[in-house]
């Protein structure tokens, strides 16, 4: 029997959530005022949770490392948000969204969580519209939809190419309102550096005020981590520069299990790397694949200009291999197909590590103005970065790390294995299995924050109404602050020769090479040794300038990279232990002519890792995945 209890309610899938809501424990309003909740991170999941909890009457404290909660990286999501509204009358339903998500995740997600996600998806759209989010509309004044990868219906709501921005600003506005009323105390430019654990329960955090370097103690009856994903472990990713795993990693070290860390999403449509100096990769929205056609030359090493390559010498490989989904094949599949084409020597551009995304047909069919209306800002962005005009020449794209499906293990209540510690949004592992479909991250972040956590957290807090606020001079706070301070001093004391970025780049190279789009037992084993060495080198040779008690960007980065290295080791361990290919996890040993070969017999489980000390082998706990409402099938998009 596993130590993991997912606490999935009994009953048929369709009524689990409704029944749960009817029976979950409640906290009466006068008690809510006495309960304090800490929310770390103010992206979609964090801002929506902080606002909703404050509306309910809890005393909320929210934290973000940016200068304003409005800047969290949810803001960069371009394409849209899925919801089973069936406004298009094209046969969508809650079940279909559920099924598409389960299948898209290559049958490695929990049925009950995903079904709940699909159920509340429609409420999200209602909520956002009421907040004044300016979604795209049709001439009749009603909401417009577009289609997205991995689905055959149009269920994606969007606000130009800035959907994430608009949804985040909606959540930020709700949060701002609560800050203004005084229900939320906001701590911007604060980074959580330690979790405070008292008698086995999460009771607070140590946060570093990034402006002054001061370590602060904050108590909460419960702590919610909404701190996003860990894609920056690869150094180059589409994540913002500041995105980090530190909060989640500290929680992991305090007893929260980390689930499926090897599930990383490599997004197929990013602007290719142009040089060593590059600091980040830029995503081109998946929505572009609605009208753009992906191709490479049929001939290897064809260096002709794209315009000079005649139609019959082009290989529209996605349309060829996946005729029913074509260019809208899911991300993991499209990424792998691009890698395959490039590995085959048919990649384009100077580096040969790119494929074309061509809009010539769309412009011919729809006219330049329609294409401009749909994708104008994306085209401009591409033009800015590459100095090439995508209206004239096809875009060059290549896969890049984009999202991490893995994260802190949570039960149906979104609670981690540490009582009172919750994880929402990309920070948890729960809804996307081994691959996330486009326009689903926004959906999950907001579902967790607006509609799930406000119910489920009450179940725990109802038992906390007699717990008085614990003063922050409690020995556990002393110990946590001491640990954080020691760590900072240790980083500053190394005074080695290599810069933090140097280590981060080295880490990224190892991860991309051995734990990226294609993984092998041999490579992963090699990576394990390399990472161990890198960790040791880091702690003996890193150079961090400046002091602890000031705004010190170098120090901030150093702390994050130290955690990334340890996480990297866990990712490799996880990838090595999963002897199958599924979704974003592709083990070259397990394939059917390039298609991922799952092993449902042995690996239909969630791998939740328990920390056993730095450099120690983490302990694996398995949560078996039961599929009662869908039939496990080979994921086919052909």
């Amino acid at each position, binding site marked *: 029997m596993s130590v993991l209890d997912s606490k999935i309610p009994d009953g048929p899938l369709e009524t689990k959530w409704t029944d749960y809501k009817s029976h979950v424990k409640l906290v009466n309003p006068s008690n809510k005022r006495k309960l304090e909740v800490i929310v770390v991170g103010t992206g979609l999941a964090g801002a929506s949770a902080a606002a909703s909890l404050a509306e309910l009457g809890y005393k909320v404290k929210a934290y973000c490392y940016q200068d304003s909660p409005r800047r969290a990286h949810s803001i960069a999501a371009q394409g849209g948000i899925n919801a089973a509204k069936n406004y298009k009358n094209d046969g969508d339903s809650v079940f279909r969204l559920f099924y598409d998500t389960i299948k898209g995740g290559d049958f490695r997600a929990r049925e009950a969580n995903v079904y709940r996600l699909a159920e509340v998806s429609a409420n999200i759209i209602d909520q956002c519209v009421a907040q004044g989010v300016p*979604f795209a509309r049709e001439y009749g004044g009603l909401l417009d939809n577009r289609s997205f990868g991995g689905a055959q219906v149009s269920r994606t709501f969007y606000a130009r190419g800035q959907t994430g921005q608009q949804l985040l600003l909606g959540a930020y506005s709700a949060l701002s309102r609560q800050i203004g009323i005084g229900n939320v105390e906001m701590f911007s430019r604060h980074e959580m550096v330690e979790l405070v654990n008292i008698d086995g329960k999460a009771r607070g955090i140590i946060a570093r005020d990034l402006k002054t370097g001061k370590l602060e103690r904050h108590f909460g009856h419960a702590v919610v981590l909404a701190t996003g994903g860990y894609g920056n472990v690869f150094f180059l990713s589409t994540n913002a520069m500041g995105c980090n795993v530190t909060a989640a990693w500290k929680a992991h070290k305090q007893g929260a299990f980390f689930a499926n860390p090897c599930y990383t999403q490599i997004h197929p449509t990013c602007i290719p790397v142009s040089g060593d100096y590059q600091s980040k990769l830029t995503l081109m929205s998946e929505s572009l694949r609605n009208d753009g056609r992906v191709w490479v030359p049929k001939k290897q090493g064809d260096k002709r200009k794209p315009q000079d390559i005649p139609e019959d010498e082009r290989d529209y490989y996605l349309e060829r291999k996946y005729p029913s989904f074509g260019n809208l094949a899911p991300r993991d599949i499209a990424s792998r197909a691009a890698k395959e084409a490039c590995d085959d020597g048919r990649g384009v551009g100077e580096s040969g590590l790119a494929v074309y995304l061509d809009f010539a047909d769309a412009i011919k069919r729809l006219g330049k103005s329609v294409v401009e209306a749909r994708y104008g800002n994306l085209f401009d962005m591409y033009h800015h970065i590459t100095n090439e005009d995508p209206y004239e020449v096809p875009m060059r794209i290549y896969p890049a790390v984009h999202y991490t499906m893995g994260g802190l293990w949570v039960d149906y209540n979104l609670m981690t294995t540490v009582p009172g510690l919750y994880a929402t949004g990309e920070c948890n592992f729960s809804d996307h299995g081994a691959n996330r479909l486009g326009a689903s991250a926004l959906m999950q972040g907001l579902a967790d924050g607006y509609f799930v956590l406000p119910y489920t957290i009450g179940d725990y807090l109802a038992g906390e109404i007699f717990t008085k606020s614990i003063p922050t001079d409690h020995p556990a706070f002393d110990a946590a602050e001491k640990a954080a301070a020691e760590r900072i001093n240790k980083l500053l004391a190394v005074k080695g020769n290599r810069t933090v970025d140097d280590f981060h780049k080295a880490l990224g190279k190892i991860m991309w090479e051995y734990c990226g789009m294609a993984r092998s037992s041999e490579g992963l084993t090699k990576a394990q040794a390399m990472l161990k060495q890198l960790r040791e080198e880091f702690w003996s040779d890193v150079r961090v300038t400046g002091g602890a008690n000031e705004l010190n960007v170098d120090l901030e980065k150093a702390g994050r990279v130290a955690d990334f290295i340890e996480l990297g080791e866990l990712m490799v361990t996880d990838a090595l232990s999963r002897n199958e290919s599924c979704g974003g996890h592709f083990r070259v040993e397990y394939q059917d002519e390039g298609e991922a070969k799952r092993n449902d017999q042995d690996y239909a489980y969630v791998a939740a890792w328990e920390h056993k000390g730095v450099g120690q082998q983490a302990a694996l706990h398995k949560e078996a995945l039961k599929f009662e409402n869908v039939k496990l099938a080979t994921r086919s998009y052909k």
Partner: protein
Amino acid sequence: MKFNLKIWRQKNAQAAGKMVDYTIDNINADMSFLEMMDVLNEELIRKGEEPVAFDHDCREGICGMCSMHINGRPHGPLRGTTTCQLYMRNFTDGETIYIEPFRANAFPIIRDLVVDRSAFDRIMQVGGFVSVNTGQVQDANNIPVVKADADLAMDAASCIGCGACVAACKNASASLFVGAKISQYALLPQGRIEAKERVLAMVNQMDEEGFGSCTNTGACEAECPKGISLSNIARMNREYYSASIS
């Protein structure tokens, strides 16, 4: 490429700052401006000096975190871009580049090029929202919105809150930022209900934060990385007058 950099260095909010000269060589034309700054910082760290603190995050022009006044203009010489979307090919080899923080008393300097823009947050906190609690809502399509209005609202809503408008304005006015937010809600039926309270609260807060008045020079619009239109300021003014006298 090679550049002479003149960068504002200031240890903290209280310390006096000054321009410091740096030279940087072997810069690739396809580097972004911030990547050039990364290279400079790596060099400084190797030399044992403290790197230049600057705000940045998404590096794709949407989070609004990057700032910097580059060669006399917020976000540098290129129109319609944030600093992170600026490339070294937009400069000429051997050029001297002045790099300063956004300057306004409402945006106090924290360190080097990092400024505190929380005044924007405080303006939002008094009225930049629709007062609707989670779950208190009707079906989304029960609120039809005229497409033209929705589009205008979206134009206004695309503001990234970077503060270039304030940095460019000779009066350090926040009118474009506040006007855009007020416009977004004023144009939508959802926002009309609280329109009066909102504009009064936000306009008062804007003054309280120490931003100046709008003189319609249009500098904000010209420097706005998202091209937010001056018409939003006019709309704010209209909303304000009618709210004040009614």
